[in-house]
């Protein structure tokens, strides 16, 4: 397995960077925040991203996608992370479409994936129920009824939950609260009776929602994957999500570091550039080293997703390496970025604070560093 971008991936990365630089600076996110935008993402920008084919990046050609793989989606996420773009890329493209692609029936894929590519369909994955990510701990119940299931429960931290047309709900059809057996996935229309969605205004100004399901009736055709037996597929979907989010985090941390490095080269104190102080230099050199490791971890994990010879277990290990490492280093880099900027870094007017906020939310999403270190140890039998 190579860890170098292919020529095609490099071209895609360059064009994504150019597009983002020109069309989606951090001021877009700031504007959405300040105007308390209903959707929380820029629809015009999203339309352009759709035209660039970003929504179909990892979707097979058979379902209208461009089959560019997760390696391709990864570089797009990395570049959009550089300016903290808020778009349906994570919820719909990375998580939602992958869930359908990994778990869906032929009919579901044929019907829904082209709608993702075209932008008609927005998705959201509803899994967490408590403040901490524990994917096997599912209380939301799905009880078999005449012609389908009745869902009850609450979900939290549902990215894009308030704009999605369809929710992918993780529920329990059998088993005890911590069992991996008995977990099922359902496609639920956002406007179905009994679904109530409350937007959460998050610290990083990205979109999230809380969801409650009260006697929501769904047909059996809404089941995504086998009843009671979706945990393995869900795990792969979550690993895809973790790796993609790690790619986005990589872009954000690189940008935060670059901004800080520029500042060290411009800011004078006591008659010298502050970048000449060895104390700051050594910390910068250590951040650089950690970011290099992050880059390798993300590349390896993305490429493993596209490598059919890699087992789910190998992907799982690489996903946890990437998410643990990125979560740890994102916190380090963004905290250091604010500290090295001094007072100006504390002001809302300056962008660097946005990077710290995003770093922290992304670190928590789909498992923080502690979660993934624990998982890594378990996967490796210690």
């Amino acid at each position, binding site marked *: 397995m190579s860890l170098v971008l292919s020529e095609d991936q490099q071209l895609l990365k360059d064009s994504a960077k150019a597009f983002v630089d020109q069309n989606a600076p951090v001021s877009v996110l700031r504007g959405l925040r300040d105007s308390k935008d209903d959707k929380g993402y820029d629809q015009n920008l999203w339309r352009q991203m759709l035209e660039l084919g970003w929504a179909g990046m990892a979707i097979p050609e058979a379902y209208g996608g461009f089959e560019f793989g997760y390696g391709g989606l990864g570089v797009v996420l990395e570049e959009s992370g550089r300016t903290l773009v808020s778009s349906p890329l994570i919820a719909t493209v990375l998580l939602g479409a992958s869930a359908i692609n990994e778990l869906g029936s032929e009919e579901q894929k044929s019907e829904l994936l082209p709608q993702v590519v075209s932008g008609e369909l927005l998705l959201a994955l509803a899994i967490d129920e408590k403040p901490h990510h524990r994917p096997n701990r599912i209380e939301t119940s799905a009880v078999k009824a005449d012609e389908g299931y009745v869902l009850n429960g609450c979900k939290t931290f549902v990215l894009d939950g308030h704009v999605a047309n369809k929710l992918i709900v993780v529920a329990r059809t059998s088993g005890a609260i911590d069992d991996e057996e008995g977990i099922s996935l359902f496609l639920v229309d956002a406007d179905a009776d009994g679904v109530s969605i409350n937007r959460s205004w998050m610290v990083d100004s990205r979109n999230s929602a809380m969801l409650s399901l009260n006697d929501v009736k769904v047909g059996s055709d809404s089941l995504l994957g086998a009843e009671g037996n979706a945990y393995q597929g869900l795990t792969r979907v979550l690993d895809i999500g973790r790796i993609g989010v790690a790619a986005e985090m990589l872009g954000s941390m690189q940008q935060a570091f670059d901004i800080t490095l520029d500042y060290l080269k411009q800011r004078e104190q006591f008659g010298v550039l502050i970048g000449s102080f060895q104390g700051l230099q050594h910390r910068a050199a250590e951040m650089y080293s950690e970011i290099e490791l992050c880059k390798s971890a993300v590349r390896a994990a993305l490429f493993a997703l596209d490598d059919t010879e890699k087992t789910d277990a190998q992907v799982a290990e690489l996903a946890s390496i990437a998410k643990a490492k990125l979560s740890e280093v994102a916190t380090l880099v963004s905290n250091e970025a604010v500290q090295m900027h001094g007072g100006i870094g504390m*002001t809302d007017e300056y962008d660097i604070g946005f990077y710290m906020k995003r770093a922290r939310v992304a670190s928590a999403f789909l498992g923080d560093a502690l979660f993934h270190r624990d998982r890594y140890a378990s996967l490796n039998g210690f």
Partner: protein
Amino acid sequence: MQAIAQLEDFRQETRAWLEANCPASMRTPMVDAEVVWGGRKATFVNPESKIWLERMAEKGWTTPTWPTEYGGGGLSKEESIILSQEMARINARPPLNSFGISMLGPVLLESGTHEQKMEHIPKIVRGEIRWCQGYSEPGSGSDLASLNTKAVLDGDEYVINGSKVWTSYADKADWIFCLVRTDSEVPKHAGISFILFDMDTPGVTTKPIQLISGMSPFCETFFDNARAKASNLVGGLNNGWAIAKRLLQHERTMISGFGLAGSQGDRGGTTSTMDSVERAAMHYRGDTDKISDPGLRDEIAQFKIDSAAFALTSQRSLEESKQGQGPNATSSMLKNYGCELNKRRYELLLSSLGSQALGWEGEGFANDEIAVTREWLRSKANSIEGGTSEVQLNVIAKRVLGLPDMLSLVQK
């Protein structure tokens, strides 16, 4: 030392006076909204706080030890301690919060002319004028002496141009005490003066600063040909750096006090789950006997142990300085370590609360959860304000450990 009997008389009189004059609602714990800052635009949410201020100011007890000549209480050190004790006995609120009292007053009493004292001190004592501090500038940062705001003499006035940043409550203040450059030809410390002027002066504007944690008391302040009377220059022309340093001592003492409190687990007297990181971790993970995330548990234990050792060190430092055991070399260390501990506390609180600590506002997040998020963001300034952690470490290295200064080689 005054005679004990005399002090005992004073205590009885004070107790009686307070009993008679301190309104009932002024004997309850302070609430943020009712803090009295005084000034021309003073607001009194609770009308009794106005009465309380006036009665205390009349006796000069807003500034108990300042000379009666300028409106102060004229109390001896011993008497002022008794006054504090008696106020504490009935939980009396402080009648007035004021940078005039905590910062400007002491240096004005030391270095001001008789006329300056007559003009400004009584209004500070009575809370009639609210002051703000014009020190930092956008370009100066840790290197305060590099300030650029210029004051040029024109007749009996200085014409001031430039801007200040981090001026707390500048938008609410009446007057400013301000460092300005009055000579650009000499080494930077030697061309600074300390001057006072009215914030209503034409050419003075302010703009509140929003922090990453939300609204703040800080402002940017701009001077565009603002004119200040030359007679309001304190301590002599180009002698402002000495005044500034004296005043900074007061400010640093205040801030390291905050750091200390923060690090000892005191989040300002609230009693929510958030006061204890370990309880918060258990609550938000649904744990009963121990924190179920073992890595988090270990980190919290380490944090608590460091906090305990830090609290013991603060205590020891205090005891040693009382006993005069060596110079109090630990203040920079305590400032720095206390701030870092407070930042660690909030990082751990965020890890403990999970997604409930990631809200900004609105439904779905309790007030104390939002407060943790905002305070986490605000805590990042702990290691910047009042001397960055880098500056504190430099001070420890040079002054405490006696290591040589490379910068002085560069600057030669």
